[in-house]
C-alpha cells in the first residue's frame, strides 16, 4: 500500500456506522507498551531505537492481524504526508516531530495502527466507527497478545506495564470516544457535563487529541486512570459514563426538535446553504458549519445528504488532504478557495463561475 492509496479511501472509522453513530463518531483504544530493559524512546540511543524498530517489525510480521500492514518510516515521508497521516487520526502530532527512528505501521482498513518510538516504544491503536468500546478493546488486546509473542514487554507485577510517563503506567490503556454534542452545547448543559466528567477522572480534549481545542461541538473524551483497575473495569466504567452522556445528548436533541424546530431548521439550512455556495472557506468555518449540517442529518431535517458524505468532506477538506488532492503545495488563501470548491462539488452546489 502506498500512502497516496489512502487518499481516495474512506477510513473504516469514518463509515458512519456502528452503535449510536449519530452521537459517537468513533471509538479509539490505545495501549502503551515498551521493550523490557531498553531505555524509553527519549532516553534511548539511536542504536537502541533501531533495535525497537527491528523488534516491532518482526513482531508485526508474525502477527495475523497485521498481515497486510504497511510500514512508513517517518523520516522518509514529506512533511505534507506526515500531516496527512495525522489528519486521518492514524498517528499523533508528536509522531511527526523529530521523525528520525520513528515508524508508523497501518493496515489497509486503517483500523489498527502502531507508532514505533513515539513517547513509548509501541503505541498500539485501534479506531472504529460508532460507540464500540468492547470490540475496540478486545481487538487491541488480541493484537497486544500477538505482539507479545515476539516482544518481551517492560512490566512489573506491582506497577503493571511500565511507560515513559507515569500517567500511563498500569494497563497503559487509554479508551476514548469522539463525540458530537451539539444539543448539549445549544442547551448550555455542556459545561456541567464536562465538569462532572473531570470529577470522574475522565478527560476532555479537542478534535486532534492532547492540547487541541474543541471545535464544532466535537469532543474527544478519554479515561485518565490506568493503574489500579483492570482493563475490563476501565472499559466497563467508561462505557457506563459515556452511555449517560449519549442519553443526555439524545434527550436534548428530542427536546430541541419539539420546542425549537423552526429555529433549528433555519440554522441548519443556512449552514448547508453557505457550504453549498461559499467560494472561500477556512477549515475552522468548515468544521463549525459541517457540525451543524451533521446535526441536521441526524435529526432527519436534511434528507438529501448522508453522514458518509459529511465525514468524507471532513477528512478531505483538511489542509494536507487538500494539498495531496491538488498534488501541490497551497498557500492558506489558495486552500480556502480549493476547500470551497471541493465542498460545493461534493454537495452538488453551484459550479465555478
Amino acid at each position: 500500500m502506498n500512502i497516496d492509496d489512502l487518499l481516495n479511501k474512506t477510513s473504516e472509522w469514518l463509515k458512519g456506522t456502528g452503535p449510536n453513530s449519530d452521537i459517537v463518531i468513533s471509538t479509539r483504544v490505545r495501549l502503551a507498551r515498551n521493550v523490557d530493559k531498553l531505555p524509553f524512546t527519549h532516553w534511548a540511543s539511536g542504536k537502541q531505537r533501531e533495535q525497537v524498530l527491528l523488534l516491532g517489525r518482526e513482531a508485526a510480521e508474525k502477527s495475523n492481524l497485521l498481515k497486510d500492514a504497511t510500514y512508513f518510516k517517518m523520516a522518509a515521508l514529506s512533511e505534507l504526508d506526515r500531516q496527512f497521516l495525522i489528519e486521518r487520526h492514524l498517528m499523533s502530532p508528536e509522531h511527526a516531530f523529530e521523525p528520525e527512528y520513528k515508524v508508523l505501521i497501518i493496515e489497509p482498513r486503517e483500523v489498527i495502527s502502531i507508532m514505533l518510538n513515539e513517547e513509548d516504544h509501541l503505541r498500539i491503536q485501534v479506531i472504529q466507527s460508532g460507540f464500540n468500546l468492547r470490540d475496540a478493546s478486545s481487538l487491541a488486546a488480541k493484537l497486544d497478545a500477538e505482539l507479545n509473542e515476539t516482544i518481551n514487554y517492560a512490566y512489573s507485577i506491582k506497577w503493571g506495564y511500565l511507560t515513559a510517563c507515569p500517567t500511563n503506567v498500569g494497563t497503559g490503556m487509554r479508551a476514548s470516544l469522539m463525540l458530537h454534542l451539539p444539543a448539549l452545547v445549544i442547551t448550555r448543559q455542556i459545561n456541567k457535563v464536562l465538569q462532572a466528567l473531570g470529577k470522574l477522572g475522565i478527560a476532555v480534549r479537542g478534535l486532534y487529541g492532547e492540547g487541541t481545542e474543541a471545535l464544532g461541538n466535537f469532543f474527544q473524551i478519554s479515561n485518565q486512570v490506568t493503574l489500579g483497575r483492570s482493563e475490563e473495569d476501565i472499559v466497563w466504567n467508561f462505557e457506563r459514563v459515556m452511555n449517560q452522556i449519549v442519553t443526555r445528548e439524545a434527550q436534548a436533541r428530542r427536546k430541541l426538535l419539539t420546542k425549537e424546530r423552526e429555529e433549528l431548521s433555519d440554522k441548519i439550512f443556512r449552514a448547508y446553504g453557505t457550504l453549498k455556495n461559499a467560494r472561500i472557506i477556512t477549515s475552522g468555518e468548515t468544521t463549525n458549519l459541517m457540525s451543524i449540517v451533521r446535526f441536521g442529518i441526524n435529526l432527519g431535517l436534511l434528507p438529501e445528504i448522508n453522514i458518509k458524505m459529511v465525514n468524507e468532506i471532513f477528512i478531505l477538506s483538511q489542509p494536507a488532504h487538500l494539498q495531496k488532492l491538488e498534488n501541490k503545495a497551497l498557500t492558506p488563501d489558495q486552500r480556502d478557495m480549493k476547500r470551497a470548491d471541493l465542498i460545493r462539488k461534493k454537495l452538488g452546489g453551484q459550479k465555478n463561475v
Partner: protein
Amino acid sequence: MVCDICGKNETTVHLTEIINNEVTKLHLCENCAREKASEMEEHFGLADLLGGMADFGVQAEPEEMSRLKCSNCGFTYMDFKKIGRLGCGECYEAFKKNLAPLLKRIHGSEQHYGKAPIKAQKAVKVRDDIQGLRARLHKAVEMEEFEEAAKIRDQIKGLEKNMDKKKENNKEK
C-alpha cells in the same frame, strides 16, 4: 487551611502567581489545583507540572533524592523532576520511594490489577495463590484448626521460596 477557590477542601497545593509584578498566593485543594493546572498547561506543559508534583508527600532528604539514579539506564531522579518522563522500566523500581506517592496521587492506587504479559503471568498467579492461601491461613487460625494452618503455612513458604529463587536467577542473568 481550606482551599481559596472552593472554600471546602483541605489545601495541598500552594501556588504563587506573578502577573505584571503583582504577586498573588493561592492555597488550593487537589481538585481546584487540577483545574487551575489545566488552565496553566499551555504555558508550562504537563511535564513541568508532573515534575513539580513529584515530591508530594515524600519526606526524603534532598541530598538523598538528588543522588537517586537508575542502575539500568543511568537516568536520575532529578532528570525525572525536570522532564516528567522516566528513563526506562527499571526506573520505577529505582525511584519507588518517591514514585509511589505520586502514582497514588495520579491514579488513586499503587497496585496494578490488569492483565500481564506472557512472561509475568506465572508470577502473577503465584502472587494471587499466596494471597488466597494467606486468607485461608487466617481463617484456619481463627477457627483454631492448627494442623490445617501449619499445612497452609508450609505451602506459602514453598511458593515464596520458589519466587525468591526465580528472582535471583533473573538477577544473575
